[in-house]
């Protein structure tokens, strides 16, 4: 971390309200994801369903501090990113259920949530997909002389796709304001990093392209929040890419089909349990309790308000109409 970043960290301590709101956001993401699984099993959500359980801090620690005119891109594990961007949970749930009121009018589904009004330029069904796009989005920022950033999330599995390397090189070459967030959740679907990646030091790779890089504890939202503040303002000022490897973990399988039985082929229950001890929501909850900013009744109050919000999203989605059949042929061409 640069010197200025440390200073920023000290300066910008989060208030109680801010911390509680991050806690609430992470809890909203967790409860929302849990509800998507219920709705998936009821047959109300189709397609693939990739949940973000365990990785909440990666989005909650960064996205809320961005500006409305910044850009966020990510892969198919994208419900959390949309929620963090401020997309209405009702529109997200409606999209998941293929309704006309969805954020993509029912045309995208789980992997293609999108909300340009809130800077969210989309989930992406291709693991390395968002990285070349981020290069272009970032170039547009630079081209217009703006000071926005483009935050691009992608996974450890994506790093073995060629387009990622082309784009890292070009973003450094042109000085493009992209914050690359490597969501290293240790598994490319069912293949562990050590089995897919001969050189598992991702920082080394980013640095090889001349991109400043650092690693963070993906379970600790306060660390992420405080350390990325300075990084983001640096990107705005200097217009160049930055790379963060998040040491994170995927509590659940790759998708719904990757159930606990399936996961036994590639990881142990004890490994999962070990990571769950560092559940980012509990971690922040305990800190807040220690600081005296969170007690049981407050916890219950937050839990209740999150529950209401998720239930409202579900009932809104279920009440919403399916897209008109004419929509099939709409928006094919630009």
């Amino acid at each position, binding site marked *: 971390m640069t010197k200025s970043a440390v200073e920023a960290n000290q300066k910008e301590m989060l208030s109680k309200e801010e911390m509680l709101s991050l806690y609430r956001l992470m809890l909203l993401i967790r409860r929302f994801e849990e509800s998507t699984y219920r709705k998936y099993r009821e047959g109300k959500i189709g397609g693939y369903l990739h949940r973000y359980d365990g990785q909440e801090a990666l989005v909650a620690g960064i996205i809320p501090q961005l500006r409305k005119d910044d850009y966020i891109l990510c892969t198919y594990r994208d419900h959390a990113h949309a929620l963090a961007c401020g997309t209405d949970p009702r529109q997200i749930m409606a999209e998941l259920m293929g309704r006309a009121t969805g954020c993509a009018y029912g045309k995208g589904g789980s992997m293609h949530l999108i909300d340009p009004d809130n800077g969210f330029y989309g989930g992406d069904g291709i693991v390395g997909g968002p990285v070349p796009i981020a290069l272009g989005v970032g170039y547009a920022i630079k081209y217009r002389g703006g000071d926005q950033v483009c935050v691009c999330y992608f996974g450890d599995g994506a790093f073995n796709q060629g387009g990622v390397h082309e784009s890292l090189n070009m973003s450094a070459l042109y000085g493009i304001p992209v914050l690359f967030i490597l969501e290293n959740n240790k598994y490319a679907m069912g293949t562990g990093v050590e089995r897919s990646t001969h050189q598992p030091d991702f920082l080394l790779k980013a640095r090889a392209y001349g991109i400043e890089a650092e690693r963070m504890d993906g379970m600790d939202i306060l660390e992420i929040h405080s350390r990325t503040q300075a990084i983001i303002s640096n990107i705005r000022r200097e217009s160049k890419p930055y790379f963060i490897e998040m040491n994170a973990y995927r509590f659940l399988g790759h998708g719904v089909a990757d159930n606990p039985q399936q996961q036994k082929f590639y990881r142990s229950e004890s490994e999962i349990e070990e990571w769950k001890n560092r559940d980012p929501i509990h971690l922040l909850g305990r800190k807040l309790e220690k600081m005296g900013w969170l007690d049981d009744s407050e916890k219950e109050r937050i839990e209740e308000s999150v529950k209401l919000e998720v239930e409202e999203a579900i009932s809104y989605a279920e009440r919403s109409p399916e897209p008109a059949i004419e929509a099939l042929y709409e928006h094919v*061409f630009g």
Partner: protein
Amino acid sequence: MSVMRYAEALRLAMTEEMERDDRVFICGEEVGQYQGTFRVTEGLLERFGARRVVDTPISETGISGLATGSAMAGLRPIAEFMTWSFALEAMDVLVNHAAKITYMSGGRVKCPAVFRGPAGTGNQLSAQHSQSLEAWYAHIPGFKIAMPATPEDAKGLLKTAVRDDGPVIFMEHAGLYAQRGEVPEDPEFTVPFGLAAVRRTGSDVTVISYSHMVGSCLKAAEVLEKEGVSCEVIDLRTIVPLDTEAITASIRHTHRAVVAQEEWKSVSIVSELASLIYELCFDDLDAPVERVGGPMTPMPYAKNLERAAIPNEKNVIEAIRKVLA
């Protein structure tokens, strides 16, 4: 009007559009300092600077991402592929991103990017550099595809492509870059998409083609004219959108059709055109539609083999004779 080469007409189109709209920029391999592999972008770096004429590494995925992402964020990029053969490196960005983002987002995000470069066969470039792959893109909903056959269309269609709100596959033909022709100087001159040009009127047979092959069809028509055969030659100009009206109107008075292009014949644009003609003009046909296309082999290097693999006016003449039998 002034006479200029096809390549110059393309350059004129880009220059005018960049003058007109600051959101328009060019990116690609050797487009700037090198002055363009085929000199299409000659002088543009000097005129518009490195911000708007971006030399890229040899990274087709990166180039396509640069164009797609910047278009999604509101710019109007023109990405040049050194040849369309190299765009195969970028298929995911093109097919799964550029073509679909408008649809996937329910129209909330658009991708007004132009992807251009030379396509087509010839010059003993052999298997990996000499091919005509427009059918790949035509298969994907979301792309518009322009393939100009004349300098005038090169300018007019490229300007329309830049102004279009969706991704456009713009395939030039290396064999046409040096061709000269009259080009309107009016900076507001454009050629609309989906409007075919009747290059020659005739009454016995409709010959449908586009790009470089239009020339072969016109030559074939000249040869057959001496035998008293009157050919109507239609240049489609854009594959998507397709001017089905022009095709059916012509066949309704000639009752016979030949479709010709230098792409591989199987599962091709000519196949698509033939089946479309059967669907739309069945009762008007007096003979089965003849397709002219390349043999199902990779492009060979040896001159004699290459000649046998690239359809030419002789093939068109044979096909016309066959439908007139």
